[in-house]
C-alpha cells in the first residue's frame, strides 16, 4: 500500500473502531512516510479514536516542547494508545512541581515527563568561560523537586538527562581533561541517576544517548532554538517521540516478552538443509560476521529477560545436528531458547503452539523472518503479533530489531535475567506432566518450596512489575506504580504478601502477589495474581490459606474476594470458588464477589508445598 492507500485504510479502521487494525496501519504509515504531515494526519484521526485506551501525559519543559505534540500523539496511536497531553507553560517546571495547587497536579496524569534542556538547567556547565559548576547543588535541586513531586503525585516521573553540546569548550582537549565539559556533564548525569535510583518510579530518559545516536550537530537546530525556543530539529521530533513511547510502553506493561525467530537467512546466511552445517554463512568474514554479531544481540536480549523461541521450516535432524556439533561460530545454543518449533507446519501454527507451550499471550510476541511471504502470512493470521521483516543485509538486523523499543523494561530483576532458563524449565515440566497421570503426584515430584512473606523493599520492583505485566492469573487487574505499592505495604491496614517459589528445575523468584485490606471484621482481598509460568501448581490456594490464617489472627469473621473479568484472566475466574468461597453476588460491571468464614474450615494449603 502506498501512503494515500495507508491513510485511507487507517481512517477506515478508525471509523470501524478497529483498534488493532488502526494501530497497525498507523505504524506502517509512519514507516512509509515519517514526518510532520503524517503525524498531523494521525493526530487528527487519534482525536476520533476514542475506542483506544486513553493515556494522559504531562510535559514539563524549559523549551517549546509543543512542537513534539503531533509526533507523540501519532506514535502513541501507532502503539494503540489515545494520548492526550497536558502542556505546562514555557519554562515553568519548577513552579508547577513546587506549588501544591498547580495545574500539573490537578490534571491527574498517567505519567509526567520533565524535559529540561541542559543549557537552561545548568547554564554554568554549558558556558564558554572557564566553568565551575556545583554538581552537589544540582543534585540537591533535583532531589528537592522529586521529593515535592512525589509528595503530591504517584504518577511515574521521567526526567531527561543532559546532552553534551556539539562543540565542547576545550575542543579536542575536552575529553582528555578531568574538568572538561564532557566529564562535567557526565557527573551531572550521574547525580541525576542517583536521585532517580533512590526515589520510587522515577526514571531517567537517556536524552544524551538519543542525541548522540543521531549526532548532536544534526539534532540541534540553532536557528529555531533562537527564533522559537525549539532546539530539536524538525526531522528528529519523531525520534524524540519514539524514545518517550519506549518508556510509556514499559510503564503500561505492553512490552513484548518473547522473540520468535526464523533460522535460515536470519541467524545465519544460506539454507541449512541445502548448504549443510559447513556451508552456511556464519563466521569471521562478511556476511557470516554480521550474522554472528546478530546472534550476540539475541544472546544479550535473552540476558535481559526476553524469551527466545524458534519457528523454522527445516529438517529437525539438521537443526539438532547443528546445535549438537558445536559450530565454532554459533553464539546461540539450545540453552538460549525456551522452545524450538522446527518442521514444516505453517508459521502461524508454530507461533500458536509456542504461545501455548510457554503460556504467553500472542500479543506479547514478536516474530522475525526474512521471508516476505511468511511475514505476511503471520500478519494476516495473527494480527496481534508484531512482525519484523528482515532485509537481505544482515548488518541491518540489529537496528531493525532494537530501534522500536519493543522489549524495553524499566527494571531488571534476577527473575528477568534467568527467564529463558525458567521458561525452558516450564516447557520441560509440561512434558513431565504429560507423562504423569496423577496431578498431585506430579506436583509433589517437583519438590516445590513456597515462601509467603510481607513485601520487602528489595522485592518492590519485581512486585510492581507483576501488577503491571500479569494478565492471565490476575483477579482484578489492579495495576500499581512502585510508589503506590510501597505506600500500601507501609499501611498497617493492608497485607501485601509476595510468593516466591523454587522447584527442582530452578529458582523462580517472586511469582505471586496478594493485597488485602482488613478492618477487624473483614479481610478484603483486593488483588491476587500469579506469574503465568506457575499457573496450575496450587500456589493461589496456598496464598488464600495464608490470608485466611492471617484473617483469623486479626479477628476477622469474614474473608471476601473479588474477580473482575477481563478478556485474558479466564485462569483466575474460579480462584475463589475452587478454594471453597461462596458466591456473594455480581455487580453491574460483571465483577463477582466471593465470601468465606475463616473460622468454619478456612482454606487448606496444598500438601505438595514445602513451606519455608
Amino acid at each position, binding site marked *: 500500500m502506498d501512503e494515500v492507500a495507508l491513510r485511507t485504510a487507517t481512517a477506515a479502521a478508525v471509523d470501524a473502531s478497529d483498534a488493532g487494525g488502526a494501530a497497525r496501519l498507523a505504524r506502517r504509515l509512519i514507516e512509509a512516510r515519517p514526518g510532520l504531515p503524517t503525524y498531523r494526519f494521525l493526530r487528527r484521526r487519534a482525536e476520533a479514536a476514542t475506542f483506544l485506551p486513553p493515556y494522559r501525559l504531562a510535559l514539563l519543559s524549559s523549551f517549546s516542547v*509543543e512542537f513534539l505534540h503531533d509526533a507523540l500523539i501519532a506514535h502513541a496511536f501507532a502503539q494503540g494508545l489515545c494520548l492526550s497531553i497536558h502542556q505546562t507553560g514555557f519554562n515553568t517546571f519548577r513552579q508547577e512541581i513546587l506549588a501544591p495547587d498547580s495545574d500539573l497536579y490537578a490534571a491527574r496524569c498517567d505519567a509526567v515527563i520533565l524535559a529540561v534542556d541542559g543549557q537552561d538547567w545548568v547554564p554554568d556547565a554549558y558556558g564558554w568561560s572557564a566553568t565551575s559548576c556545583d554538581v552537589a547543588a544540582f543534585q540537591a535541586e533535583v532531589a528537592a523537586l522529586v521529593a515535592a513531586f512525589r509528595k503530591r503525585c504517584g504518577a511515574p516521573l521521567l526526567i531527561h538527562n543532559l546532552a553534551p553540546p556539539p562543540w565542547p569548550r576545550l575542543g579536542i582537549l575536552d575529553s582528555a581533561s578531568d574538568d572538561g565539559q564532557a566529564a562535567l556533564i557526565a557527573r551531572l548525569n550521574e547525580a541525576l541517576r542517583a536521585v532517580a535510583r533512590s526515589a520510587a518510579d522515577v526514571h531517567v530518559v537517556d536524552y544524551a544517548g538519543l542525541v548522540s545516536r543521531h549526532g548532536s550537530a544534526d539534532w540541534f537546530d540553532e*536557528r529555531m532554538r533562537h*527564533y*522559537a525556543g*525549539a532546539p530539536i530539529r524538525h526531522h528528529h521530533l519523531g525520534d524524540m517521540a519514539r524514545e518517550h513511547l519506549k518508556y510509556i510502553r514499559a510503564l503500561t506493561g505492553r512490552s513484548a516478552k518473547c522473540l520468535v525467530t526464523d533460522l535460515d537467512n536470519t541467524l545465519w546466511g544460506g539454507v541449512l538443509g541445502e548448504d549443510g552445517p559447513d556451508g552456511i554463512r556464519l563466521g569471521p568474514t562478511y556476511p557470516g560476521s554480521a550474522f554472528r554479531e546478530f546472534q550476540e544481540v539475541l544472546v544479550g536480549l535473552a540476558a535481559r529477560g526476553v524469551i527466545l523461541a524458534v519457528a523454522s521450516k527445516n529438517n529437525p535432524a539438521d537443526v539438532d545436528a547443528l546445535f549438537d556439533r558445536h559450530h565454532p561460530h554459533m553464539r546461540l545454543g539450545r540453552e538460549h531458547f525456551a522452545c524450538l518449533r522446527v518442521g514444516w507446519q505453517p508459521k502461524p501454527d508454530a507461533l500458536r503452539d509456542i504461545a501455548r507451550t510457554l503460556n504467553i499471550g500472542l500479543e506479547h510476541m514478536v516474530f522475525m523472518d526474512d521471508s516476505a511471504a511468511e511475514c505476511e502470512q503471520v500478519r494476516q493470521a495473527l494480527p496481534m503479533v508484531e512482525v519484523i521483516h528482515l532485509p537481505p543485509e544482515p548488518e541491518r538486523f540489529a537496528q531493525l530489531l532494537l530501534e522500536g523499543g519493543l522489549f524495553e523494561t524499566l527494571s531488571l530483576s534476577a527473575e528477568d535475567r534467568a527467564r529463558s532458563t525458567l521458561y525452558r524449565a516450564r516447557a520441560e515440566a509440561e512434558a513431565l506432566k504429560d507423562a504423569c497421570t496423577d496431578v498431585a503426584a506430579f506436583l509433589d515430584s517437583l519438590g516445590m518450596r513456597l515462601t509467603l512473606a510481607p513485601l520487602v523493599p528489595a522485592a518492590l520492583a519485581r512486585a510492581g512489575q507483576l501488577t503491571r505485566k500479569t494478565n492471565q492469573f490476575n483477579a482484578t487487574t489492579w495495576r500499581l506504580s512502585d510508589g503506590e505499592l510501597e505506600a500500601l505495604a507501609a499501611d498497617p491496614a493492608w497485607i501485601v504478601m509476595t510468593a516466591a517459589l523454587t522447584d527442582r528445575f530452578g529458582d523462580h523468584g517472586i511469582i505471586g502477589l496478594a493485597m488485602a485490606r482488613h478492618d477487624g471484621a473483614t479481610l478484603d482481598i483486593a488483588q491476587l495474581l500469579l506469574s503465568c509460568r506457575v499457573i496450575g501448581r496450587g500456589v493461589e490456594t496456598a496464598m488464600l490459606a495464608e490470608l485466611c490464617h492471617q484473617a483469623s489472627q486479626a479477628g476477622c469473621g469474614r474473608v471476601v474476594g473479588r474477580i473482575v473479568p477481563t478478556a485474558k484472566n479466564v485462569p483466575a475466574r474460579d480462584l475463589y470458588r475452587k478454594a471453597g468461597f461462596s458466591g456473594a453476588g455480581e455487580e453491574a460491571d460483571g465483577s463477582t464477589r466471593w465470601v468465606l468464614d475463616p473460622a468454619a474450615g478456612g482454606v487448606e494449603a496444598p500438601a505438595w508445598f514445602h513451606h519455608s
Partner: protein
Amino acid sequence: MPIDDEIKALLADILGLAPAEIGPHTAIDKVPAWDSANHVNIILEIEARFGFTFPAEEIERLRGFSDLVGAVAARRATV
C-alpha cells in the same frame, strides 16, 4: 503542481482548512490556527518541500499566503 497550489495544500493541512479556503486573505493575523508554533511549522515544511532555508530575520516578514508564494517564487527564479 504550481507553487501556489502546493502552498495552498501545505497551509490547508497545517491549519486544518480546505485548500479552496486558502487565498491572499489567509494570513497570520486572520486565521486563528496560524499561531506562532504553526508559523514555525509552515516555514520548516516549505523549506523541506522546496529545498532551501530562510534566514531567521525573513521568517518574521512572511506573514501570509502571498508572502510565502512570493518568497518561494523569488528563490525558484534565481536557481
